[in-house]
C-alpha cells in the first residue's frame, strides 16, 4: 500500500494546472461568466481551448497508447479532472472523456460530446424515454455546443446527433453551463435501430467518479479563496481570519475537502461501486457546503456577480444533480451494508 500521488501523477496534475492557469485562470472565468442574467444567453464553448485540452490529453488520457492515448488509469483522470474543477472549467468534460474511445475525434478535442443519462432504456418502437419528466436524466448540458450525445441507458449505450433529442432550453442557474430539458414526446427515435452497445454501467460509474473529482477540485478551490480573503480582509482593525468564527468556518471547509479527497482517490483505485457512491456523496457535499461557507466568509464582497464564489456554488448545485445524486448514493451505500461484511 502506498496511497500517495506518484511523481508522474503529480507532473500530470501540474501540467493541467499550468495549462488552465494560462488559458482559463480566474480572470478568464470571470470574463466568461459576464454579462450575466437570465436574459443573456450563456456563452458557447471555446473550441480553441477544447482542442488544447484535447492535445493535453484530458480526453484521451485513458486510451491505449496505440490509439493516441496515454494508457493512464482512473487515478490519473481523477487528478486532471480535479484541476478542471478547481478552475471551474465549463463544458461536457466528463462526457467527452468517456466518449473518447467511441466517438471519432473526441479524443483530441475536435469534437464536443455531451451526455444523456437515461434511467430507462427505451425498447425499439416504444414510447418516450422515461428520462423526460422529473428525473435528473432529463437534463442535458451544452446541447447546442455539442457535436454528439452519448446516451446511457441502464445497461447499454449509444451515440446520437444532438438534433435527435427533442429538448427545450432552460435558463440554467449556472451561467457557464447551458441546459436543455428533454420533452416528453413520443417518437423521438432514441430507441430505434440497433446501435446500442453494452458498457453503460461502467461508464456511469466512471462518470459519477469524474464528476466527484470536478466537485473535489471546486471544494479545494473555495478553501483557498476563503483563506485568501480571510487573510487580507480587515475589519475591527485586524484580518477577519484571526477571528475564531471565521477560522473555524475555514477549518470545517478543509475537513470536508480532505475527507472527500481520500475517498475520491480511493474509488479511482478500487473502482468499487459503493466506494464510488461514497466519493460522489462526499464530494458533492464538500463542493456545495464549501461554496456556501466561502460565501459566508466573503460576506457582502462575495455577493457580487464579479466575485468567483457564486459560480462555484452554482456549478456545485448542478454537478450534484448529474449522474449519481445523493438519494441514489445513499441507497447504494445502505444496500452495500447488507452485501459485504
Amino acid at each position, binding site marked *: 500500500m502506498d496511497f500517495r500521488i506518484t511523481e508522474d501523477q503529480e507532473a500530470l496534475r501540474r501540467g493541467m494546472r499550468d495549462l488552465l492557469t494560462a488559458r482559463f485562470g480566474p480572470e478568464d472565468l470571470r470574463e466568461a461568466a459576464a454579462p450575466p442574467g437570465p436574459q443573456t444567453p450563456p456563452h458557447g464553448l471555446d473550441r480553441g481551448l477544447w482542442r488544447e485540452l484535447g492535445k493535453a490529453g484530458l480526453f484521451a488520457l485513458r486510451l491505449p497508447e496505440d490509439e493516441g492515448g496515454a494508457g493512464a488509469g482512473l487515478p490519473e483522470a481523477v487528478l486532471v479532472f480535479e484541476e478542471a474543477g478547481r478552475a471551474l472549467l465549463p463544458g461536457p468534460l466528463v462526457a467527452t472523456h468517456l466518449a473518447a474511445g467511441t466517438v471519432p475525434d473526441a479524443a483530441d478535442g475536435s469534437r464536443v460530446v455531451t451526455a444523456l443519462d437515461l434511467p430507462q432504456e427505451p425498447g425499439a418502437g416504444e414510447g418516450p424515454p422515461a428520462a423526460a419528466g422529473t428525473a435528473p436524466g432529463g437534463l442535458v448540458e451544452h446541447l447546442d455546443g455539442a457535436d454528439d450525445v452519448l446516451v446511457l441507458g441502464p445497461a447499454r449505450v449509444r451515440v446520437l446527433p444532438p438534433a435527435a433529442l427533442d429538448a427545450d432550453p432552460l435558463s440554467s442557474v449556472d451561467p457557464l453551463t447551458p441546459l436543455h430539458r428533454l420533452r416528453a414526446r413520443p417518437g423521438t427515435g432514441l430507441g430505434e435501430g440497433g446501435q446500442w452497445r453494452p458498457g453503460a454501467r461502467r461508464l456511469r460509474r466512471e462518470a459519477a467518479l469524474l464528476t466527484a473529482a470536478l466537485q473535489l477540485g471546486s471544494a479545494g478551490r473555495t478553501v483557498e479563496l476563503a483563506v485568501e480573503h480571510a487573510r487580507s480582509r480587515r475589519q475591527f482593525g485586524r484580518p477577519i481570519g484571526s477571528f475564531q468564527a471565521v477560522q473555524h468556518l475555514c477549518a470545517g471547509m478543509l475537513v470536508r475537502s480532505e475527507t472527500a479527497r481520500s475517498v475520491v482517490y480511493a474509488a479511482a483505485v478500487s473502482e468499487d461501486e459503493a466506494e464510488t457512491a461514497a466519493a460522489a456523496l462526499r464530494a458533492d457535499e464538500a463542493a456545495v457546503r464549501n461554496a456556501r461557507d466561502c460565501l*459566508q466568509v466573503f460576506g457582502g464582497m462575495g455577493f457580487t456577480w464579479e466575485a468567483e464564489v*457564486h459560480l462555484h456554488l452554482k456549478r456545485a448545485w448542478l454537478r450534484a444533480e448529474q449522474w449519481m445524486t445523493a438519494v441514489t448514493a445513499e441507497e447504494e451505500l445502505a444496500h452495500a451494508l447488507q452485501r459485504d461484511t
Partner: protein
Amino acid sequence: MRLDRTPQQEEFRCTLRAWLTEALPTLPPKPAPSDWPARRAYDMHWQRMLYDAGYAGLHWPADAGGQGATPTQHLIFLEETERAGAPYVGAGFVGLLHAGPTIAAEGTPEQRRRWLPPILRGDEVWCQGFSEPDAGSDLASLRTRAVRDGDSYVVTGTKVWTSHAEVADWCELLVRTDPEAPRHAGLTWLALPMDAPGITVRPLRTLAGTAEFAEVFLDDVRVPVANRLGAENDGWRVTMVTLAYERGTAFAGEVVACRRVLHDLARAARRNGRWDDPVLRRRLGRLNGEFTALWRLVQWNVSHAEHAGRTGGSSVPGAGASVFKLAYSGARQELYDTAAEVLGPEGALDSCHEWTAARLSSLSYTIAAGTSQIQRNILAERVLGLPKGR
C-alpha cells in the same frame, strides 16, 4: 399570554382587509424587475394609495405625520398586506423604515417639515449610504470624509450596498468629520441630495444576476450644513437611536410569506409525487414547525416591544431581535434548499423559477444587516453577558 386580538385590533384588521380588497385591483401591472424607474413609480404609487387611505407611516409617531399605531397594529398590517398579496414597501424602504424615523427622532422642526411629508406621500425616495468597501461588519471604521467649508461639507468617498441609489432623491449619509477622534466619535449624519454634482452611481450585479444594489462614488460633493441631523461628530448616536427603534416587526411580513411558500411546496410535492418520499415530507414538516415557532417569536417580540413602548422603554430587547434574525435567516435558507428538493433538478437548476431565484437571494440573509457571526457575538456578549472577545 394572549394571542387573540382586542376588539380594536380586530376592527383595524377588518377595515384594512376591506380596503385592500378594493384597492389592490386598481394597481397597475407590476413592472419588470430590471426597470428601476418603473419600479420606483409603482412603489410610490402604492405609497400614495396608503397615504390617501390613512395607512402611511403607520408606525410613525403622530407628531411626525404618522398614525402612531402600536407594534401589534403594525404586525397586523404586515400580515394582512402579505396575505392579500399587496406590494412590498420597495423603494420606500429606507425612507419609511430608517431615514424617516431618524429624522422624526433627531431632526429640527424645519428638517422634519422638509423631509417627512414627501416620504409619507410617496413623493421622495431615500437610500442609505452607510457601508463602504472597507467598512462592512465594522461600520464604525468608515472613511468617507466630510470637510467643513463655509456653509457646506465637502464629501469624498465611496459607499456600497446602496439599494435604490439609481432612483433615490436623498441619501442618508454617514461620514467622518473628525479623523483624529476615536472611531465612533468622529462621524456625522448628513442628508445628501442625490442630484448634487460629483455623485456617480454604479449598479452592482448580485450573484442572483439582478442589480439590487449600487456603489456610490462621492467626489467633492457639497452638502449644506443645514442638511446635518444632530450635532457634528454625533452621527453614530443619531444612527443608533433609530437602529434601536426596532419593534420586532422586521421580516414579519416575510415570515408570513415563507409560511405560504411552505404550503405551496407541499402542494407542488403532492402534484409531482415527491410527497411520497418520507425524507422530503418530514423535512417539510420540520420546516413547518420551525416557521410556526418563528411566527410566534415575532408575536412574542412585538408584544414585548409594545409593552416597552407603553412603559417608556423604546425597544425590543436585543435578545429577541438577534435570536429571531439568526433563526430566521437559517430557516429561510433551509426553506429554499428544500424547495430545490421539491422541484427536482429541472426546476432547481432553472434560474427563472421563482423558488430558485429566491434560493439565490436567500444566501444574503446570513450576511446582510449583521452577519450571523456578528449576531452571535451580540447574543453572547450583550445578552448572555459573556466576557468580551478579543
